[in-house]
């Protein structure tokens, strides 16, 4: 087996003094798609934010190594420049900053010396936008300002395609999408996953119909309750989460 791209060992995460993630471990390698499923409040988004380095999400114990380096040594922007990417569940609006400018500056910041020339970038943008069914006028709009839910998610995926990350974390990218957009988004994830690793956080099975997850993790109360292949997602879809609940904790979570 190759060296893991990301290895998480028994981490605990606190948010505003609340202990949300309670001993979580996993390993991810290049070419893999990992799906994390779980109820609201299970700690899925907390994991995504903690990995990207949001200051309110504190890893209080355990360790995370990315490309062999302790993750804590890297500032948020250094993580991005080292190939980590987070597709946000709730992307922020940046009024007055045009999408085109934002994409160009972000590609230059993340890819540094390897960034494509402006001409090449324009070509890549055009291709990626065509693949996502995004109109050219998108580039002149302000980042996420007045965007519909679907437009926000498309912009996240567009950024992912252009930044070509090594580790892409997608936090409920599928929620609130119509079926066509969902398919488009899945196509984007699949194309990135060929040369990198994706961590896909989702509530529902339906996105997974279009992806082939290498592993499906079910998260309950801040820890991984079960790991399996794609069939686990179908099982969860059919039976819900209760059967995976450790005995005596169900009422606490309800």
């Amino acid at each position: 087996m190759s060296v893991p791209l990301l290895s998480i060992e028994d981490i605990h995460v606190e948010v505003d003094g609340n202990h949300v993630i309670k001993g979580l471990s996993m390993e991810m390698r290049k070419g893999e798609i990992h799906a994390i499923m779980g109820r609201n409040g299970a700690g899925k988004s907390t994991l995504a934010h903690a990995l990207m380095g949001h200051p309110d999400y504190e890893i209080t114990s355990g360790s995370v190594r990315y490309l062999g380096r302790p993750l804590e040594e890297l500032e948020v922007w250094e993580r991005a420049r080292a190939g980590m990417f987070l597709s946000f569940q709730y992307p922020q609006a940046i009024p007055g900053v045009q999408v085109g400018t934002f994409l160009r500056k972000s590609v230059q910041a993340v890819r540094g010396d390897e960034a494509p020339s402006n001409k090449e970038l324009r070509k890549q943008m055009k291709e990626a936008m065509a693949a996502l069914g995004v109109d050219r006028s998108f580039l002149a709009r302000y980042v996420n300002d007045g965007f519909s839910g679907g437009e926000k998610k498309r912009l996240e995926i567009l950024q992912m395609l252009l930044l070509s990350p090594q580790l892409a974390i997608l936090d409920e990218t599928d929620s609130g999408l119509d079926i066509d957009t969902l398919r488009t988004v899945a196509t984007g994830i699949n194309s990135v996953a060929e040369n990198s690793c994706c961590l896909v956080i989702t509530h529902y099975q339906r996105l997974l119909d279009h992806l082939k997850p290498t592993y499906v993790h079910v998260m309950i109360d801040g820890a991984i309750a079960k790991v399996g292949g794609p069939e686990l997602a179908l099982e969860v879809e059919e039976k819900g989460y209760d059967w995976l609940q450790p005995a005596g904790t169900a009422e606490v979570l309800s």
Partner: protein
Amino acid sequence: MKEQARDAVGDYRYGFHDSENATIRFDSGLSEQVVRDISAIKKEPQWMTDIRVKAYHHFIERPMPDWGNSEMLNGINFDNICYYLKSSAGTEKSWEEVPDEIKRTFDRLGIPDAEQKWLGGVTAQYESEAVYHSIRDDLEEQGVIFLDMDSGLREYEDLVKQYFGSVVPYSDNKFSALNTAVWSGGSFLVIPEGVHVEMPVQAYFRINAKNMGQFERTLIIAKAGSSIHYVEGCTAPTYSTESLHSAVVELIAEEGSHIRYSTIQNWSANVYNLVTKRGIAYKNASIEWVDGNLGSKLTMKYPAVILKGEGAHADIISVAYSGEGQHQDAGSKVHHLAPRTTSRILSKSISKNGGRSSYRGMVQVSPKAHGCKVSVVCDALLLDADSRSDTYPTMEVANNSCSVEHEASVSKVSGDQLFYLMSRGHTEEEAMGMIVNGFFEPFTRELPMEYAVELNRLLEMEMEGSIG
């Protein structure tokens, strides 16, 4: 995070200064004799001397404003200021003839370069007098008059006599009285009927000496159906003692004409910037003030438009940026005196490191002004908890056939916005710079491109080292 306290001096790019090689420097302090001496040096007609002396007495008698920032205003020591300083023999038309010291300053500010590339005319004022002046031949051939104000008075005395003080009388306020008493330099610009000046003309004001007072006086007359874009920039060295900049600008927009007046004020943080700017717009004319206030210790400035003719329009877009120890008290005034006049005011301010920004605005609609439209939008952005923003809007609407809209908002940069941008590879400072530039974008897009790029660069530099 690490503490990166940098003083304001370190952040200011234009803080360099040259040695003073004054050919004439008045002793500090103001008296009737000083006023008469300034007029005598300039060999002015008697009527101008008389206005100056009247204005001087009004200045002495007029109390200091008790609003704005009284504490800072009362800190001005008028006796410690030099009211006239001349550093070169005259106003040169060729850049080569400008004295080396002064030329170096303007070279460092990029003025001759900008002139070659995109300006229709330039005047550069150093201390009290214009040192360089040029206008493109084609504009001169079309009859455009673009002179420094002193030359304007000499060459077009009748026009100056007719309009000087007609928009801003000396008795308007304490600082318009001071300016009228000791004015020197500024621009005199007349655009003939129907002439459209496509390229902007620029004035650049530089204070170099310590404890200097700069009191330029600008008069722009746009004849019927003409148009002009006038741009001014201002900088000064950073000294520990204070300088005073108190200008008066008068605009006259005749029927169907269009004046756009853009300012990027980037004085160093030891300059009091107390300026009166006002225009009169006649029938179907429009006046736009595009007013950027980045520097100075205290700015009090409220560009105004009197909408005197039917269908006249005013557009006032201003931004203010206040850092440590700075107070930008800026805003706008519009007087709707005629039917179907329209005005749009957009004010945006950013406060950082304990800086204070205030919007102070006044819109008046007279009983006769039927069918007017007024829109006022004020947005403030606070970059930290120590900074302050206030809004003082006044609306006096004496006519119920008008549509009046007013919106105000105060927002803070959120941690989630910063995190979003940082997750795309931008450092915290770059992220802050992007948010700030975005906030000012509605202003920046109104500027000539070269100015917009420069402004964005200045703002990004202001963000450097600013994250605690």
